[in-house]
């Protein structure tokens, strides 16, 4: 698998890629996020771990505005997500403006969510052609290159139902990369995979990390976090319990809740 680097837009430096300030999220009466403050720097691989229901997936979905935050501020590349601020008033962005913000943020889902009525190649071509109005030829050329790089050059014409879980997830990564995002969100990308297929997806992600992509990864793969991650955050019950370098947090957790969680998963 060769370098994925050419598809990564050079990240503008000087400010964090993602900045969360006191982010809260409630679904009705359920208070899911209770004040998240964190920063993700460009080219950083940022891992989020924690028990299920801790709010890590919800936080990830707030970053590309699939969920609206209830309080606080969330910035991607110095731009407020989902809102525009004029004076001290917040204005909701129009649907097309939200869509424009999302173009710069790729997302990979636990359940792949490939479009089942399109082939692998069509899945990867869809957004560039439909959203960026690229010509089919240009989009096809890039899609073929991306599929080659995730090791699926020989599966272009296959429909998702004809691919294994690991192959589907690699197509999904290629589909997200086709929009040349400056940030990639991974929502438990290997949790729905058979154990023997996890490695091939993690290899692609490792490759991407080496090429300098900014990545936020919600994961249960502690090995991946330790090896590839630059920072790691342990979340529980809607708050950040512990943050630091993955090696430090995983081998020498300070907080009791982190210790008890790690003792169960490691």
């Amino acid at each position: 698998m060769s370098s994925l680097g050419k598809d990564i837009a050079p990240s503008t430096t000087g400010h964090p890629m993602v900045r969360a300030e006191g982010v809260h999220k409630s679904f009705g009466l359920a208070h899911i996020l209770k004040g998240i403050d964190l920063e993700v720097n460009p080219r950083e691989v940022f891992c989020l771990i924690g028990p299920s229901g801790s709010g890590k997936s919800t936080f990830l979905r707030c970053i590309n505005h699939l969920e609206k935050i209830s309080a606080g501020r969330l910035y991607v590349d110095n731009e407020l997500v989902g809102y525009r601020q004029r004076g001290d008033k917040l204005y909701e962005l129009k649907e097309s403006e939200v869509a424009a913000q999302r173009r710069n943020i790729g997302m990979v889902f636990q359940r792949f969510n490939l479009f089942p009525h399109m082939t692998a190649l069509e899945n990867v071509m869809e957004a560039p052609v439909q959203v960026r109005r690229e010509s089919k030829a240009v989009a096809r050329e890039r899609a073929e290159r991306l599929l080659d790089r995730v090791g699926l050059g020989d599966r272009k014409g296959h429909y998702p139902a004809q691919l294994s879980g690991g192959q589907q997830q690699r197509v999904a990564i290629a589909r997200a990369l086709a929009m040349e995002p400056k940030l990639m969100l991974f929502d438990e990308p290997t949790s729905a995979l058979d154990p023997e297929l996890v490695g091939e997806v993690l290899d692609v992600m490792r490759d991407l990390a080496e090429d300098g992509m900014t990545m936020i990864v919600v994961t249960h793969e502690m090995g991946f976090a330790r090896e590839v991650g630059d920072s790691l955050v342990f979340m529980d019950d809607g708050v950040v319990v512990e943050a630091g370098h993955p090696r430090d947090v995983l081998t020498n957790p300070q907080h009791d809740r982190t210790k008890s969680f790690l003792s169960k998963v490691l």
Partner: protein
Amino acid sequence: MTDTVDKTPAPTVPPEQIKAIPVRHYGRWVAGAAVIAILVLIGIAFSNAKINYGVIPDYLTDGTILSGVWHTLYISVLAMVLGLVLGVILAVMRMSSNPVTSTVAWFYVWFFRGTPVLVQLLLWYNISLVFPILNLGFYKDEMNQVMTPFLAALLGLGLNEAAYMSEIVRAGIQSVDEGQTEASHALGMTQGKTLRRVVLPQAMRVIVPPTGNEFINMLKTSSLAYAVQFNELIKRAQDISSTSLAVVEMFFVASIWYLILTTVFSIAQYYIERRYARGSSRNLPPTPLQRLRKNLRLFGSFRRPEVAR
């Protein structure tokens, strides 16, 4: 990663074939005989009836009947197209977050599904009672001149169909996994694009079978358009029987044509369903033609009984 194929070498000498005496199904023979007996009795009853069967083949290709078939066919297709387009719009309106549009759509379905088609047809035909003059600004005419039997039939059948189609389309849209919408939004696609490119194509798999059913229903419901003087099959058959007095015979002629039309469209439906099954199953089921060809090939190289797979 690649499909593993069972590479166990087949034994060169096949094991001895089992030659057992199959279970006898006496019940099937009894039931079959009973069915034949009943059919024969019904057949005798019909052939002894005072029906002049001899005229049926002649009238089957009569010019008046053929024009009725053509009218039935095109009013059904046009009404169905109108129903389909309006049905999609109504379904999207119904599911929209805008309370005005969703209420309008709900009310439309409530009204057009809740009143008889015959009444709706007659209402359109007599719409000049309500609006004697049609004034579109650029076009103005007496409503009586505008509301031809064709237009009354099209509006009556099509607008009624839209109410049913909107419920079918809505069920189809709701059957598509939410993750599809999320993935599409995450790629930066707008609501409209997501609906057109991602949701509707997948909803089609759920929408097509009941739509085929609706169309076949429409072929026969269109006979109600005789009430607004539209020259469809039943009206034409009655026109003939009013002079030839072959009333029942003409209904037989019409029924044979309805059977032919529904059969043709049932076959078309099979192929359309197959097309929209793309991607939902690994291998599409063979078409009847492919199955026939395969069976012929098997038959040609028949050596030993095929082992059930």
